[in-house]
């Protein structure tokens, strides 16, 4: 039954080209074009090939991935997630679906499919980041190095996993707002406001106390940055594992609590008018 709901949701998303493009392809494409444009700008500024500044492929990928759930990409991920999570309120189509599968499966499948789409979004980010590096190097004349820091595939996979988890905290929030507000726009606005507030709050609290503490660790964006810093560093030299474990638990807990809340609310919701 759950597999049926996932298959149906995946089928829908693959036919919803607008959501696929704006929600899950647009931000990586903008990142790609900005990266290439940056190289063109640098080349024009220097007026000669930048041979002394090698481009670090792995570093570029990890930076692009690390920004995968920052404010700008989060806006577009929220648009995609909201279209999937709240589309049936907007189109008044829950009445078609709820007699065919359980509400747990229906909303759970939406979360799974958004999770899949975000994973593909991050894979696209990797591919476009590599492509931008190669094109950028050819434009600016910079040489390419595989990895200046010694980081490799394991570090890329780690950063990808953490950014995905960070994005899923926002998706779970979008799910709660989608169910409560019955509105895609409400979900998008909530995600953007919360993502922006996280950045401001993290900077403010770090100003008061630069060391990780329970206040800063409770902020998913801060915890994700901490985790990314940990997995990016080869051999994790000089980093304490205590706060890192807490940060991982915080991200998992936010995602689980919000997703569970959305499902519980949806299970009890009257669909008099979607």
């Amino acid at each position: 039954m759950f597999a049926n709901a996932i298959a149906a949701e995946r089928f829908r998303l693959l036919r919803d080209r607008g959501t696929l493009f704006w929600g899950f392809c647009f931000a990586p494409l903008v990142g790609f074009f900005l990266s290439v444009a940056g190289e063109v700008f640098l080349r024009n500024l220097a007026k000669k090939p930048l041979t002394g500044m090698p481009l670090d492929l792995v570093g570029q990928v990890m930076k692009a991935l690390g920004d995968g759930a920052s404010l700008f990409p989060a806006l577009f991920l929220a648009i995609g997630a909201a279209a999937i999570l709240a589309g049936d309120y907007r189109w008044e189509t829950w009445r078609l679906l709820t007699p065919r599968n359980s509400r747990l499966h229906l909303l759970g499948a939406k979360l799974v499919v958004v999770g899949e789409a975000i994973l593909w979004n991050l894979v696209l980010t990797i591919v476009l980041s590599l492509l931008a590096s190669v094109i950028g190097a050819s434009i600016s004349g910079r040489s390419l190095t595989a990895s200046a820091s010694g980081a490799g595939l394991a570090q890329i996979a780690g950063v990808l996993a953490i950014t995905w988890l960070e994005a899923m905290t926002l998706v779970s929030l979008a799910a709660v707002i989608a169910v409560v507000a019955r509105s895609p726009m409400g979900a998008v606005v909530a995600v953007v406001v919360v993502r922006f507030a996280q950045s401001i709050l993290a900077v403010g609290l770090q100003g008061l106390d630069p060391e990780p503490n329970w206040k800063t660790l409770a902020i998913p964006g801060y915890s994700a940055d901490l985790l990314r810093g940990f997995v990016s560093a080869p051999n994790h030299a000089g980093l304490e594992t205590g706060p890192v474990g807490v940060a991982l638990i915080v991200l998992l807990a936010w995602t689980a609590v919000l997703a569970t809340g959305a499902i519980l609310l949806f299970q009890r919701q009257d669909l008099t008018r979607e």
Partner: protein
Amino acid sequence: MTIALEASGLVKTYGAVRAPDDLSLAIPAGGVFGVLGPNGAGKSTLFRIALGLVRPTSGTAQLFGAPAGDMAALRKVGAMIETPRYPPYLTARDTLTMLALESGVRNADIGGWLERVGLSQAADRPTNGFSVGMKQRLGLAAAFFTRPELVILDEPTSGMDPAGIQEIRALIVDLAQKEGVTVILASHQLDEVKRVCDRVVILSKGKIAAEGAVDTLTASQVRLRLVASPVAQVLAVLGDKGEADGPDAVLADISRTEAPALIKALVEAGVEITEARWREADLEGVYLKTLKTAGAA
């Protein structure tokens, strides 16, 4: 006898409005059952509760003996509630494919059903360009294509042209008679209900105002039509049981046993009676009279 849909003491409150209001009803499996009533009588809410879309304030609803919303029971049910809507980016074929995936139905005859409801030419067009009638047709295909035992249809021919109404009416009767599908139909088109339904229930303000076989209901509400002169005197004798039916006739709302005494009284009052004939009410007459009696007309 299998009960397809059963409501027991069912109440749903919307602010000050209660509809259904302590509704108890058992709709047996087999045939076509009509649910009639004015807007706000609780028809759609009854269906939404049965399908698990809405939770009742109190009371219970059951489908095939299972609580409302039970997925095992819902797998036996197809439904079209109010004007159907679809994700606008999906074509008609994609919509049915998506619903088949959702239901776990692997071998649905999607093309066959689109043809059966007259949408084969529009099968690969996005539904956002569909007329209301086309959306209704797709909704019917969506309700029927998984081969359910029970189909709940809320205003199935609303927005359709007369030819479309006739096609869909034939389809409903065909499915009920040849394939044994139980159909529960809510409609404001009483002619349609009379043509396709075996039994009906009339809801008023959330309660049952009348229930029974269509023939029994119409036969139970016979009226005596008197062609007589002067009409004013006949109406005076009948009081609120009389209603003018043209310039020279009166409809008397009386029982067969009261007729001899009435005729005798009219003759003694000097009324000249040229014709007296019993007239069976049509479903519209039964419906309007029932609602008037229930105070909801």
